[in-house]
């Protein structure tokens, strides 16, 4: 009996530790994403969120988080669009909140950014970004994807067809 209970116990305890360590604040890590009224793509959009928006995590279902925005709207975001802010985790590990915030400000805007790309392009004028910009300007509407899946007997509803 002991043999069966061990791993389960360990898993439970580890889960508890992880829960303690996890913050209930999430931050949007991609340019824009949608807050939806159900945990599925193509569910009606409640609000549009942008990079850096902070969200309170209310719950989870599969790969989706139920969240509340600063403006008070509630809905679902996909987990690939958000992350647990690292500085919050550090600040929560005890008493360093103000220090973390000061450094967060100092590090903001640093990294491989548009400024670095501009400088790189200045140094390498033969590398053309014209097609990159055209490629990134290609818009694929969610309705188009939904229609494509349906007509191709693909996606979540396919078993009922």
């Amino acid at each position, binding site marked *: 009996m*002991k*043999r069966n209970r*061990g791993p389960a*116990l*360990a898993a439970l*305890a580890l889960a508890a*530790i992880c829960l303690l*360590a996890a913050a209930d604040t999430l931050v949007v*890590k*991609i*340019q824009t*994403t949608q807050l939806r009224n159900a945990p599925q*793509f193509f569910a009606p959009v409640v609000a549009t969120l942008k*990079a850096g928006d902070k969200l309170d995590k209310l719950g989870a279902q599969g790969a989706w988080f139920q969240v509340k925005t600063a403006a008070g709207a509630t809905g679902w975001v*996909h987990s*690939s669009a958000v992350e647990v802010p*690292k500085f919050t985790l*550090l600040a929560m*590990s*005890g*008493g*360093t909140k103000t*220090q973390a915030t000061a*450094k967060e400000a*100092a*590090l*903001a*805007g*640093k*990294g*491989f*950014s*548009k*400024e*670095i*790309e501009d*400088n*790189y392009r200045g*140094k*390498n004028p*033969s*590398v*053309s*970004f014209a*097609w*990159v910009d*055209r*490629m*990134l300007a*290609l818009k*694929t509407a969610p309705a*188009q*994807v939904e229609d*494509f899946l349906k*007509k*191709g*007997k*693909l*996606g979540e509803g*396919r078993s009922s067809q």
Partner: protein
Amino acid sequence: MNARRALLIVAAAAVILGFAASAVQAQIKLPGKLGDAAQKAKDIAKVGKILRSGFADITEEEEYYIGRSVAALILSRYPASDNPALIQYLNVLGNAVALFSDRPEIFAGWHFLILDTDEVNALAAPGGMIFVTKGLLARCQDEETLALILAHEIGHVAAKHGLQSIKKSRLTEAFTSLGAQAAQAYGPAELAQVTSIFEGVLSDIVEKLVVNGYDRKSEHEADALAVKFGAATGYDPNSILRFLQTMVGDKSAVSGKGWFKTHPTPEQRLEKTKGEIGKLKVTPAIEEVRTQRFKQNFALLK
């Protein structure tokens, strides 16, 4: 594993977590009276290093900017094919598969483009910019095959294989340097230094992507993800086997590069991929309606 051992592991995990937290605190503690500008800069550099140590710590936005330049370098080697209708079909198909991947949402969305070359190849820049060549498209017989190839490339991006090819020493240099100054804007010297690290990052990735090809582990992982994402979307994953089969024993000049230049042989990939398909609970079957629309769209290519 018995209960005592399990508890020991838990206790060890707790201790390690506690240590990690206090170590971080200890290292980022500002010296009270000695907090002059130089010391602050040093501390911030330390924070930069503590917070970011590996490829997984590259932010989505940084991945996007790395990806843009990698894409530009790919497009400086191969011209793009300007075929709006086919590009649109490719983007709708690619976005449909990406929805059923581990990374449906990515910084600026998923984008797909056709390269105008007979070489049989597909390339994925970090950040979700994916390229397929005309030569590869010409070898696809149906939508299933193209979907599985795009799923393989989406797999490389989802698993961040491009970012993993950045040299470890380069990342350490980048993270140290990025945190080196307290000022919020780059000074001229810092800008020059970070740009030169950026150039190094690009050459690491392009070398792997375009010149040498991925290693065995990354290639098998992308094949496994192709099966997973493709089948989750509803495509017959056996289509990738049919495609890999065409690669067996192919010694033609156009196939001496790209998709054919991976380190596992097509035979090894076939073997492993069959195993992955065998693990699926449900294996979708090919649908005629998809093959029909594929052929309509590809009449535009020829």
